[in-house]
């Protein structure tokens, strides 16, 4: 919680936005980057024949926000689900499980397509994954563990309880 309880905090709001204003969209990008740096876990949504399924994953994000990545053993339900249908969503938020979350917390939902990384790409992302989650090094190095990249299409950012902005990353 910020020292002045968030009231009057100078973060970007719709009032400072203009349509097609790159300035505003860079503010929102900065906000998302800070959120992703601070948070370690994301909720991953997949589905099994239409039945939604949510799980927690330790994640990382590219500088340009175009890719989110996480690791999962190949025997998991989530891996089976995203192999059958690569359309997924990830939710990252900074709530503290307290009543004041309602006015203070921020949540970002990313939608996009998941793909398992291979070859040099896997090596590069694996190094970054380990740098971010050093305690998961053995886990991610395991031959049974897949490293998944999500190519993001949209971010939907919720703040102040009900103010929602949508950032388009790819068509």
């Amino acid at each position, binding site marked *: 919680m910020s020292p*002045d*309880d*968030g*009231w*009057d*905090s100078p973060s970007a*709001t*719709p*009032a400072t*936005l*203009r*349509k*097609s*204003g790159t300035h*505003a*969209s860079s503010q*929102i990008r900065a906000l998302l980057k800070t959120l992703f740096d601070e948070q370690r876990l994301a909720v991953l949504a997949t589905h099994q024949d239409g039945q939604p399924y949510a799980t927690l994953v330790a994640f990382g994000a590219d500088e340009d926000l175009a890719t989110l990545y996480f690791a999962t053993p190949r025997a998991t339900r989530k891996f089976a689900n995203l192999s059958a249908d690569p359309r997924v*969503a990830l939710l990252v938020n900074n709530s503290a499980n307290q*009543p*004041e979350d*309602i*006015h*203070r917390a921020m949540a970002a939902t990313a*939608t996009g397509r998941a793909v398992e990384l291979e070859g040099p790409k896997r090596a590069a992302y694996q190094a970054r994954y380990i740098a971010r989650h050093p305690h998961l090094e053995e886990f991610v190095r395991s031959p049974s563990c897949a490293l998944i990249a999500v190519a993001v*299409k*949209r971010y*939907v950012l919720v703040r*102040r*309880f*009900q*103010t*929602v*902005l*949508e*950032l*388009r990353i790819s068509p």
Partner: protein
Amino acid sequence: MNTKWIVPLEAAGPRDRPRIGGKGYALYRLLSGGFRVPEAVCVTTALYRAYLRRTGIGERILMELNRKQFKDLRWEEIWDSALRIRSLFLRKELPQALEGPVKKALHARFGDSPVAVRSSAPEEDAAAVSFAGLHESFLNVCGAEAIIDSIRKVWASLWSDAALLYRQELKLGVDKSAMAVLVQQLVTGRASGVAFSHNPVNPAQGVVEAVHGLNQGLVDGAVAPDRWLIDRQRRRIVGHTAAERRQWAVADPSGVRLEALPSALQSKTPLDDAEVRQVFDLALAAQDHFGSPQDVEWTFAERKLHLLQSRPITSGREAAEGDQRGWYLSLKRSFENLKELRDRIENELIPAMLAAADELVALDPGRLDDAALAAEIRRRSEINSHWVSVYWAEFIPYAHGVRLFGQVYNDSVHPEDPYEFLTLLGQTPMAGLERNRLIDEMAALVRATPGMAAALQAGEPPAAPLAAKLAAFIDRFGDLSCPASGARHCTERPETLINVILQLAAHPPSHPQAAPGARAEDLKVAFLARFSGAERRRAEEMLDLARSSYQLRDDDNIHLGRIEARLTAALQEARRRLAPRIPDDAAEIDPSELLLALENPAHQLRAQPLAAKATAPAPVRTLRARQLVGQPAGPGIARGPARVILTPADLAAFEAGEILVCDAVDPNMTFFAPLSAGVVERRGGMLIHGAIIAREYGLPCVTGVPDATGLIETGDDLTVDGFLGIVTVATGRL
């Protein structure tokens, strides 16, 4: 009885300041110094905090204040926030575990004898003292239950609109601010007042001000006091300014009421010279006790002088340039002041305004020669400016009648919806609705006359029966092509008016819902049942005043629009005459240019060239608003394409079923209400025109949406949720 929740003044100690607040602490020090102060207990900040925590109100306040960035709130929205916060305090009783011991202690101490319940904020002697009247006090409260009700209202006043406006100076924050409350035996004096040990404008003098009766009238500014200046050195009265003594404040069951001063007292000064010196000595003694110049409140009861309050004198606050807060707060008028205002508005200003408009309608600018037309334009411009300034000085403050009633209604009824009171105020015959009815008539004529709609659509001039109605309408209300106030340019043909008639002819709307009428009557009965005797008469008067204030909120703009329309008509006549001299690509011509050209046939007209039409393809909108938060201002939910109004000309394209999105619903836009599916407005407030008209037509309405016209584009698929105050934009597939 010295507990965590309640500390009697005589049991307080030097370390109690943070929990009993500034006012309580000053009185504790005075009592210890031997001053005669009324018997009192302090309700501690611990009780306030426990109440906030246990009822969840603390978090509710945070939600209310974090809906939007605070800097985006207009004063009206701040007032609305304060009203909603106050409603939380009114509706949530003290939890049993807190109420039991507090009630018992208050009952043991005061029984049913009358008390004053006053705010005692811990910060009070620092910043807040320069904002006298920021928090509320209640006088003549009897019995523990009523005292606890008043305590909740005093707590709520920590979050009053004034406090929210000055939140930075007050360091107001949900986590760090708390309110203690002083419950003080009511001393009903025969004369009361204030005294300054040090005249702020002349340090060699002291000041005593006194009124007959209670000092509430003086403190509120409702009763003018007699004023004495005292030479500090020689303790000699060096000046006395007698007041026009007409009223006094007396205790009544609702607290305090102003009454006519009995004639025997009108000719009598509230104090004799010896008493003036006695009061001044009291102020000096308080100064000695605290070691700084003091501002004291006192009363004489049963020949004894009582000290009610003492606080350090602070120099008046100089408003920084551009600081509008003083003006906002000056809009909060007393009931008495509003009654005078009403009398002036209804009996002088409105008739004069209508007469001015009629006089202008009767004079056809087409019959004047060029020089006379120029003079007429100047004259109309002056008349218009005069009424615009009357609008700001008199009509805008009168709108407070609605707010004042809202507070009285909520305080007595404690409704779940803090805006229920608006239901009682609707269904008044407003000029805006009358105007819409006339438009409906013209639409019905178009519908009933074969071929008429097609002809109008083709741009043909209106046929005879419609043309006559149109002319009569335009004489009365103008052609709806320019905003009511501050118009610089209007379109020259009544296209907007013809469009709305065509739209209405094609889509006859189902008209204002009749249902609220019966409900308004029920609410009125229930409201008035809370009062009896003189109080009931006052409540009736207040409702009547609020209805008149609510009605004026729309009517004044219509009347103003009529006057402005006559100025526009004269300017249009000038443009018509000067057409041969106006360059073809001219978009805007300043009226001063028209005047110069009328008076001097050789004058070369200068005009702004038409802006080149932007033809670049619309940029891809990478960042879009998916959901925007405002205030729920008209219940209901609607979905439809957005029609964003940036200039009055945009209205000409308005189609039935669209959602009106604008910066501020101008009263001259309200005729689109029956055609639209919902209203979204950047300007915030529950009592603004858009909200009032939307309620009148039963349209979902959300106001106070930051940058609504920037983030929403015409054609966007919008959902307006008038229950929750949110607007959702369909942004396509994820």
